C-alpha cells in the first residue's frame, strides 16, 4: 500500500530531514510513527500528502509512484488520503457540518447525499447535536473529532495523523487513539505520528521509530499489553455511539457494500497490487535490524 525506497529529503537550507529511508506499510495496517522532534515524522507525512516532494528515491502509494505524479493529479491522490493535524485545521468560519462536508463538496456530490453522509458520521461521533456549531465553540476533543470526521467522510484508503493527541489532555488523547484503532479495524491503513511513547506502549501496534531522518527501529505488532484494545466496547461507545459501532462509514453510504478501503481507491489506484511490493526480505531485514 505505502512503499518508500531510499527516500531522501533535503530542504533548501541544507538540512536532511530524511536520509535513505526505505519502508513499507501494508494495506489495512495500523502503524505508529515515532521519534524525537526533528526526526522526520512530519516530513514523511508531508511527502505522503505530496505537500512536498522527495529529493531522491521513490514513494509508491497504492502502486502509484507519487514521485512522478503531476501537480494536477495531486488533489485526486489526496482524496484517497485523510489527514488529521495536531491543530485540527478546521475552518473557523464554517460550521461543524460544513467543515466535514468539504471532503464531499470537492467531489461535486449533491446536497442531499452530502447531508446524509455527514450527519450519519457526525452522529456516530456523538457530534450530531453540534452540526451548526462553529469550531471555536467546541472543546478541543470535539474539534479533533470533527477533523477526524472530515478525514473519514469520503472513506479514504489511508488515514494519516500528525500528533493527533498533541493538543489534548491524556484521557481525550486515549479516546482519539481508540477511535483511530476502530478506523484501522475497518480496513483503513492508519499511520499515527506521535512522540508520546507512553501512548504507543499502551497499544502495542507496529511502531516505526525515526532518528535523524533514518529508520532507527521497526517494532512489529505485539500482543497488546494492558488497557488499549482490551478496553471493552463500552468505553468506545463514548466516542462512537451504538449506531457507529455497526460501522458509520458503511451505514452512511449504503451503496458502498464493499470494504471502504477498496471502494475509496478509484481509477488512479485500480491497478494497485502487490506486484510492486518491496521484496519481503527487505522489510524483514529492517525489522530485525534493531
Amino acid at each position, binding site marked *: 500500500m505505502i512503499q518508500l525506497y531510499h527516500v531522501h529529503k533535503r530542504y533548501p537550507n541544507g538540512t536532511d530531514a530524511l536520509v535513505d529511508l526505505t519502508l513499507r506499510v501494508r494495506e489495512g495496517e495500523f502503524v505508529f510513527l515515532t521519534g524525537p522532534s526533528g526526526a522526520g515524522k512530519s516530513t514523511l507525512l508531508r511527502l505522503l*500528502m505530496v*505537500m512536498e516532494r522527495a529529493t531522491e528515491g521513490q514513494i509508491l502509494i497504492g502502486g502509484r509512484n507519487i514521485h512522478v505524479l503531476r501537480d*494536477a493529479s495531486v*488533489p*485526486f*491522490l*489526496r*482524496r484517497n488520503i485523510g*489527514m488529521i493535524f495536531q491543530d485540527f*485545521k*478546521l*475552518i*473557523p*468560519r*464554517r460550521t461543524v457540518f460544513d467543515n466535514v462536508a*468539504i*471532503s464531499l*463538496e*470537492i*467531489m*461535486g*456530490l*449533491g*446536497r442531499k447525499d452530502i447531508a446524509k453522509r455527514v450527519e450519519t458520521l457526525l452522529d456516530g461521533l456523538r457530534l450530531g447535536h453540534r452540526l451548526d456549531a462553529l469550531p471555536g465553540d467546541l472543546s478541543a476533543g470535539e474539534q479533533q473529532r470533527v477533523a477526524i470526521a*472530515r*478525514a473519514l467522510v469520503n472513506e479514504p484508503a489511508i488515514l494519516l495523523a500528525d500528533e493527533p493527541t498533541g493538543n489534548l489532555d491524556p484521557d481525550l488523547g486515549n479516546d482519539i487513539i481508540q477511535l483511530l484503532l476502530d478506523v484501522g479495524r475497518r480496513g483503513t491503513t492508519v499511520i499515527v505520528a506521535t512522540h508520546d511513547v507512553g501512548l504507543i506502549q499502551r497499544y502495542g501496534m507496529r511502531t516505526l521509530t525515526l532518528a535523524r531522518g533514518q529508520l532507527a527501529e521497526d517494532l512489529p505488532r505485539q500482543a497488546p499489553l494492558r488497557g488499549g484494545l482490551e478496553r471493552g466496547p463500552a468505553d468506545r461507545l463514548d466516542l462512537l455511539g451504538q449506531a457507529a459501532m455497526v460501522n458509520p462509514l458503511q451505514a452512511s453510504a449504503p451503496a458502498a457494500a464493499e470494504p471502504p478501503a477498496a471502494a475509496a481507491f*478509484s*481509477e488512479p489506484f485500480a491497478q494497485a497490487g502487490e506486484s510492486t511490493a518491496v521484496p519481503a526480505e527487505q522489510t524483514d531485514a529492517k525489522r530485525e535490524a534493531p
Partner: protein
Amino acid sequence: MKRGAHPTYVLTQALQLLRGSPWLATVSALTIALALTLVGLFATVMFNAGKLMQDLGQSLALSVYLQESASEPDIAAVRTKLEGHEGIRKVKVLTREQDRERNKRLLSSELLQGLDEAAIPGQPVLEVEIDAALASRGDVDALVKWTQALKGVAAVEDVEFGAEKLRLLFALVEILRTIGIVLSGVLLASSMFFVFSTIRLAVFSRRDEIEILALVGATPGFIRLPFLVEGALQGLVGAALAAGLLGLLHIELRGLVRDVYMLNVAWSLLPPGMIAWLVLGGPAVGLAASALSVGRYLKL
C-alpha cells in the same frame, strides 16, 4: 470522479466572501455602476450624434446665389462648373421668377399684403445637392474650400453652405468621443482595481481555508471558483445599477425633450441592445479583475 463543484456550493461561498468585506464590495459594485453608466451615456451620445450627422449629411445642400444682373450664359457657365465637380449630385436652376415665388411662399401673407409683386426679392439661384456619402468630415472640408473659391467667380453673389456649421459639429463630436473613451477607460480601470483589491483581500483573509481545501483534495479550480464568482457578482450588481440609472435617465430625457423643445424626436436615447451589453459587460469586467487578482495572489 472529476465532477466539478456544485453550483449551490460555489454561489454560497461567493456570497460569503462578499459578506466578508461588504463595504469594499459595495464600493466595487458602485464604481462599476458609475463606469458603465458613463460608458452607456457616451454610447448614447455617440450613437445619436452619428445618426444626426447622417441625417444632416443627407439634407446637405449648397445654395449659390447669383448676381441679379447675371445673364443666361453666366448662369450656364457656373452650372457647368458645379456639375463637373466630384461629389455634386444634382444642380437645379431657379430663375429670378421661381426664386421670387419661393420667397413669396416663405413669407406670411400678412407681410405681403399690399406689396408690389416686383418688391419681393428674387434672384437666380443654383440649388446644389451634395452626395450624402461625401458628408464625412474630410470630404466636407474639401468641399467647403472649393465652394469658398466659387465666391470669386464674377456672377456669383454669395454661397451658402450648411457644412461650415456642420464642420464644427463634427469637431465637437470628435472631441466628445475622445473624452468619452478616455474617461470610460479610466473609470473602468479604477473599477477593476477596486474589484481586484476586494478579491485580494478575500484571498488573504482565507489563507487558512485555501490551505485546508487543498489538503483535503480540492482542485485549484474548485478553490478559485468562488473568488471568480465573487468578482463577477460585483460586476453584475454594478451592471444592474447602471442599467437602472440609464433607464431612468432615458425616461427623464425623453420627457424633457418632448415637453420643452416640443420636438418629435425619433432619436433613441438608449441604443438598442445596450442593456444587453451592460448586463454582459459588468460581470465580464468583474470576472477579468478577479481573475487577475486570483492569478496573482491565489497560488496553489
